[in-house]
Every structure is written in C-alpha cells, then in structure tokens.
C-alpha cells in the first residue's frame, strides 16, 4: 500500500542517464522546470513533451513505474485544475448560480495540468536516475559558492542526504508496524474521520519512538567515526565532468534554443 509511492525513489538500472554527473541532472531539471513556464504557444508543449519522453526512454526506467508516481499527487492536480477552471475570466459557456465556466478557464485548466504533469515527471526522473548520495554530492558542489556568504552548505546537504536515506527506512518501518498492529486486530481502513485519526495512534507512537532511536544511533555512529562537519573533509569519489556530461549540456542548450525559436513563431 504505502510502497506505491514512487516519488523520490531510486530505480537501479544501467543507463546513460544514470551515469551522468548529478550536477548536470540538477541543472537540467531546474532549467526544464523553468522552461515549462516560459513558453506561451502550443508548439512549446510539443517540444517539451518530445524532450521529456526521449529522456525517459533514455533512462530505461519503465514508463509505467514513473506514471505510478503521479497517483500520489492527483489531489494537487484536481486542486489546481478546479481553481483555474472556475476563476479564469473570459467567455462564459456555462453558468449555474455563482459558478461560471469559461472557455479560457477550460484551456488554462488543461494546460496547467499538462505543465504540472511534465514538472513532476521531469523531477521524479532525476531521483529515479540518481542515488540520494550522488544527488546531495551534486547539490553540495553546486551550492559551494554560497559558503563565501556563510551558508552552511555542507550541513544542509548532509541533512538532506540523511533525510533522503531515511525515507525508505521509515516507509518500511511504517509498513511493518501497520502489519503488526493489524495482527492485533487494528483497523486502519474503516470508520469516520475521528475513528481513523484515533486508529493512527498505535502506528504513530512506535514510529516516532523508532525514528528517535534511529537518529540517536546514527548520531552516535557518526561521532564514533569522528565526524566533525565539513571542515577538511575529502571525498572518496569526487565529482568530475566527463565528455558525456558536456554532451548532455549541449543537448540541454539545444532544447532551450528550440524553445526560444518556437516562442518567436
């Protein structure tokens, strides 16, 4: 049940995309997200879609698996679509009481949903193809200049990598505790809101206890290995750009250029 959430997971296959430097993927994802909101005509959608799906193809992550991640954010889609549908002014085609639907509203709702879908697919593709460790390494290296203005870059990326590392562990733990309480007759699925909220206590208390225990153990283990923050710390596998990464940057440039040209049409 809880394992159906695929956002933020890593999908271990060997593909060109998996081998790319995490910094390329981070920059690429950010650029892609911005690009989604930069174009204003319909051709832009086609270019963005072609780009996205060719990259998904390259990543060797099954499309089915990626699409499953969308299920978790359906609520968000419905929410934005409804907002756009009812609150966009324009030519009215349907009216009932204070509810008014306009052509512009329908168009914006559809386009917004497409943009959001692309956004989520694009960013989940990054986590599918990059291990959490790699991701935070990339982030740390990209944010490094901020150290000059006293931003604790190393600490931030360490916290992020620990948080990412703990997501699957906590999910597994949730699954296990849920099953254990179900074996004692607990019921998480039926009943009204109050009853359901109450039924979560036997799940949440052990979950918090175990999260604190793990955090404690981790802190102890880190200290035992003389962890003292980022000062003077070196990496076993320092990040290095290769030919493939430069090629990827070029492809990215090409995509942006195509969008700029199309926007002029």
């Amino acid at each position, binding site marked *: 049940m809880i*394992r159906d959430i695929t956002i933020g997971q890593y*999908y*271990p*296959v060997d593909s060109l995309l998996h081998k790319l430097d995490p910094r390329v993927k981070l920059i690429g994802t950010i650029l892609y997200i911005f690009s989604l909101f930069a174009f204003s005509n319909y051709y832009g959608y086609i270019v963005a879609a072609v780009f996205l799906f060719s990259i998904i193809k390259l990543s060797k992550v*099954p499309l*089915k*698996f990626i699409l499953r991640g969308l299920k978790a954010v359906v609520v968000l889609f419905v929410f934005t679509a409804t907002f756009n549908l009812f609150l966009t002014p324009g030519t009215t085609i349907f009216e009932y009481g204070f509810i008014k639907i306009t052509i512009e509203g329908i168009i914006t709702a559809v386009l917004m949903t497409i943009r959001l879908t692309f956004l989520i697919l694009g960013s989940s593709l990054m986590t599918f193809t990059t291990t959490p460790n790699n991701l935070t390494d990339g982030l740390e290296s990209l944010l490094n200049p901020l150290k000059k203005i006293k931003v604790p870059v190393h600490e931030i990326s360490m916290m992020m990598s620990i948080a990412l590392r703990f997501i699957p562990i906590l999910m597994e733990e949730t699954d*296990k*505790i849920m*099953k*254990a*309480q*179900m*074996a*004692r*007759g*607990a*019921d998480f699925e039926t009943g009204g809101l109050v009853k359901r909220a109450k039924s979560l*206590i*036997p799940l949440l*208390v*052990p979950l918090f*206890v*175990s999260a604190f225990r793990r955090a404690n153990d981790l802190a102890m283990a880190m200290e035992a290995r003389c962890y003292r923050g980022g000062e003077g710390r070196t990496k076993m596998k320092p990040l290095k750009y290769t030919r493939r990464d430069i090629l990827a940057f070029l492809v990215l440039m090409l995509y942006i250029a195509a969008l700029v040209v199309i926007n002029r049409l």
Partner: protein
Amino acid sequence: MSIIVDKLNYIYSPGTAYQKHALKDINLEILDGEFIGLIGHTGSGKSTFIQHLNGLIKATSGGIYYNGENIYDAGFNMKSLRSKVGLVFQYPEHQLFETTVFKDVCFGPRNQGLDELQVELRAYEALKMVGIDNDLLDASPFELSGGQKRRVAIAGVLAMKPEVLILDEPTAGLDPKGRDEILEQIAKLHTESKLTIILVSHSMEDVAKYVDRLIVMNRGEIAFNDTPREVFGHYKELERIGLAAPQVTYVMNELRKRGIPVSIKATTVEEAKQEILRVMKQ
C-alpha cells in the same frame, strides 16, 4: 482442523527492478496442536511465509485453507482469522505504544469487541502466562528491559486467545537466560494451553529441543519437512544451504567415526549424554 497451504507463490514488487520471487510453490499441512519449527538462512522467505497465514500478505498465486475454508474466498472473515492465528513479529517490542504495560496488552482483545471485563481479564491472564510480575502492570512499556518488553509484546497477542501462535524469531537479541525463559514459556503454552505453535528461528539448537516437526526453507522453497532427528541426519545438505545441525549431531557423528558405536539420532545435549552413558556402560 488444520492449515493447508496449496502451491503458494509470492512475488514482491512484480514488474519492477525490485521484483523478488520470495516464495515458490509452497505446499504444507499444519495440524492442530503441532509444535513446528521453521528454519532457514536469512532471506529465505520465513517472515514472508508466516504473514500469509493470517492474511497480512495476499499470495500471488495458490491458496490457503484454514479449517477447510479458503481464506481468499470473497466472504471469508479476515478479521476473525487474525484473532485465531496470532502472529508475533520479529522485534515485537517495537510496536508497543500505550502508556502502561497493561493497557498495551488490552489493545488486541479490545479490537476483538469483547466487553471491558473480559478484555482486562484476558490481558491479566496473558501477562501472567509470559511471567510479567504484577508490579510491572502500571509501568510504561518503554522503561522495561529488552526481554520484558518482548514478553509484554507476546502477551499482547496471547491476550487475543489465538488457536495458532506464530512467533518470528522471538529470541533474537536476547541473552542466553532470556532466550531459554522465553522458549520454556512457549513450550509451556503448547503443552498446557494446547496451542498450535510455529516457531521461526535461525538456531537449530533452539528448536531441536522443543519442536515435533522441522520445516527448513531455502531460497523460497521448502528444503526439508520432517522430524528434527531426520532433518539433522542431512547435516551435510544443511551446511550447503547456510545452516548447521546442532553441535551434538557433529559430536555424535565424530564419535561414531572414531569407533564408538553411539546412535547418531540424539538431537539435544541431554539425549546425547544418555546415549553416551548407555554405550559406555556396555
């Protein structure tokens, strides 16, 4: 009255890179009142298998019949199955959540819909059965020792008065004394309350002493299913799948090899002692 497992298969995350065929064509019959040991190397599928028996995991294919009823039938009452087949998970102390020991044990029977008097009576009985003293009833479960927590968690399942009790490595992480005490109490439940018991373990020594039948799992399949005596006879094959017979089996085999005519059937230290004494007297 029995549990029949028919060609059970289970696959984790089918269709993804994490796909794992955890159980392959398991056929098994568990009779009323049996004391069964389930043994296997780590990752052999023991925990996956026992979660099928009370319906927490649904098989990918195959069936399970509890007292003749197919548990995957549409009208089957899963909730009543869960109170008849009590399952104690690995590290059960991690599920304690209430403010006192007593309240925590009440959780199971209360979910069964019993009246408050019955609930408390059962909780009290269960705590007695696992040997928790009265002065601990109002303690917070979080301030108990590891072994005490484990007992409270076991009591939490016993209080539901199951017909079958399944324990997933109940002695993991306990010291030898705590381990023996828990195993003795489980054996007592079997003889006195006539519970059917399935004991999952890594250790041959642990199970050899108590169980009537030993099921050995290897990579999701049943490798052996026989009395401990017969299974330990195959100690060479056991070693090949990452297990070992109890040390006495090796001692007896070695003695025999050196010309002392002992029977190699002894499975516990006590039996071995008797056997050696018998041969020495001749």
